[in-house]
């Protein structure tokens, strides 16, 4: 079986060492490189072509978000997992917009890293449970205070199904095949979902899905 090749990027050697230790205990994972800052990460990703880049958000010389954007634009097949101290949606949304597939809180890196790497390597998304919780709390509090109703309740069961599949990273064609629908129908459902939830773009849709615990 082919091992999943991982590039670790963090400006702190201690952290990198800890992460490497975690990864190398897994038989199907291997670390192919370590980077110290954003620029080095972009360069190594280009030359090493890893399957997964695990990267800290706050790094010198190009921060993690910019680096993620450059990597996913140049090599869409590389999956990026963001490591961050912040569970705020500003960060999550920026990471998603930069093309990251996973978002891990550093506190829970030790327990979730392996799951996250496996998930994104399979093309799925992964978010630390703590992130989903914070996002959901914010969302619920806001609904409560403004008195508005939860837009999720407006969705039909079919739309919820499609929302989940799209958020998991499936293309319209995959969704159509899975649900035995035409691509055109899936397209229509998708635009209805976006309109009902008042979302702009896939990153916001994924954020919404994470917030509601539809994906993790």
């Amino acid at each position: 079986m082919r091992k999943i090749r991982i590039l670790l990027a963090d400006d702190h050697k201690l952290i990198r060492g800890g992460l490497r230790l975690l990864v190398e205990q897994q038989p199907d994972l291997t670390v192919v490189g370590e980077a110290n800052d954003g620029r080095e990460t972009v360069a190594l990703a280009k030359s090493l072509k890893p399957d997964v880049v695990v990267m800290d958000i706050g790094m010198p010389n190009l921060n993690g978000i910019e680096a993620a954007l450059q990597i996913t634009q140049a090599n869409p097949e590389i999956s990026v997992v963001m490591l961050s101290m912040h569970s705020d949606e500003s960060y999550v949304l920026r990471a998603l917009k930069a093309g990251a597939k996973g978002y891990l809180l550093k506190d829970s890196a030790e327990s979730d890293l392996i799951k996250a790497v496996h998930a994104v390597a399979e093309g799925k998304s992964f978010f630390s449970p703590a992130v989903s919780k914070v996002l959901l709390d914010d969302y619920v509090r806001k609904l409560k205070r403004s008195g508005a109703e939860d837009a999720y309740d407006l969705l039909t069961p079919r739309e919820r199904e499609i929302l989940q599949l799209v958020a998991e990273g499936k293309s319209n064609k995959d969704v159509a095949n899975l649900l035995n629908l035409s691509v055109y129908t899936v397209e229509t459902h998708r635009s209805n979902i976006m309109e009902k939830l008042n979302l702009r773009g896939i990153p916001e849709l994924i954020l919404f899905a994470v917030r509601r615990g539809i994906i993790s």
Partner: protein
Amino acid sequence: MRASTSPNAAAPPTSAPDLQSSEHSKKLRRLLLISFGWLLALLIGAGVDALFSVRRLDRDSQEVSRRFTARNHALGTIIVSVRIYDDQIERFLLQDQLQESAPDPADLTNKIAAVRAALLEFPPDRDPDEQLLLAAMQQQLQEQETSCAIVQAWRADLRQQRAYQFIGQQLIPWRTRIFALSAQISSLDERKLALENLAVATRFQMLESRLVWLVSLSLIAGVLMSLVCGWYILRLEREGRLRYDALSRSRLELEGLSARLVEAQEEERRAISRELHDEVGQSLGALLVEVGQLSKLVPPEDRVTQGQIDHIKSVAESAVKSIRDIALLLRPPMLDDLGLVPALEWQAREISRRSDMEVEVHSQNVSEDLGDETKVTVYRLVQEALNNAATHASAKNANVTIVQNSDKITVEITDDGHGFDPARQRGMGILGMEERVRRLGGTFKIESAPGKGATVKAELPLHKADSP
């Protein structure tokens, strides 16, 4: 802190000369006041003196001419009455020759009484010469009265016989004597008039010269005092200018100082925050990873060790959390990682999580690459205003609006809290906001009133580097 002592250190040496010069000016002012008082008194005195002198001179000169006229008149009356009497007595004596109706002898007595009355009419304020001449006249009159009585007693034939003789030898010489006396008095009076007029003229000249002297004295004193005043005013002006210069210089220094303080504070916070996050935070993060490894190495049956490890983990986790909170407060990495608007949104949610206040952020046209100073200023402004609204004003809702135009960025934070009076309550927080905004050349305004919520508004000019 060292820099802040320098303007204060300059203050004490300037205060001693200040005191001295104020003492000096007090003396000078008193001197000027007294001098002006004297000058004024001099002028008023001169004016009053001139007025009274002129009036007195006028009165005296009128008195002189009145006395002269009165004497003249009296002399005239005497001469006329003498002429009338003379005429009457002539007609009485020549009544037979002229074949006229004879005048009444009683009338003659009347006429002589008129002469006597005219003599008495002469003004009583006589000098000795006058008195002498008048006495002579009186004498003449008495003699005439006596001879008149004799003439009246004459019978007609005696009268016819002696009439011409009496007229030629008695009456005409008497008349001539009276007239000579009168001419003497008159010339005496004229001489006196001339003398008195001369005296008045002399007094007038004296008054004139006294006035000229007083006026020139006042003029000289006035010019001297004007010079002193001018010099004093110039000195005051120069002092005022110097003081103003010093004031504006120290204000500039103070502004520079507070700007440097804000800068230093921001730099310090950034350094501490980086240090905490990079060194302590990362070490703790690594520690957590290691502890996780450790717990895997210990068999799950060893409950005691596992418990110890879990405890270590939770202590480390809470340390990580506190350090993160502190670092975030000091310098939110969001500003560098995400840009201004997401950082503000983060801030808004952070406050919503911590307090009962819901914050909404609206942004319009805000560019991603604003200058660091502008970003930090807006961020701190919003942070301070929201903290005030949540903690002091117990607001339930707050709105942050940030709009960027071609040359400026406008931030407005409104809340529905219980408000305050911005003219009276100005804490360090507000002063800090104002200082930050002024440092960048912007304008800062707070609108609030008790019970009316509050609006904090700032406009920051954008430099070329900040424009999109």
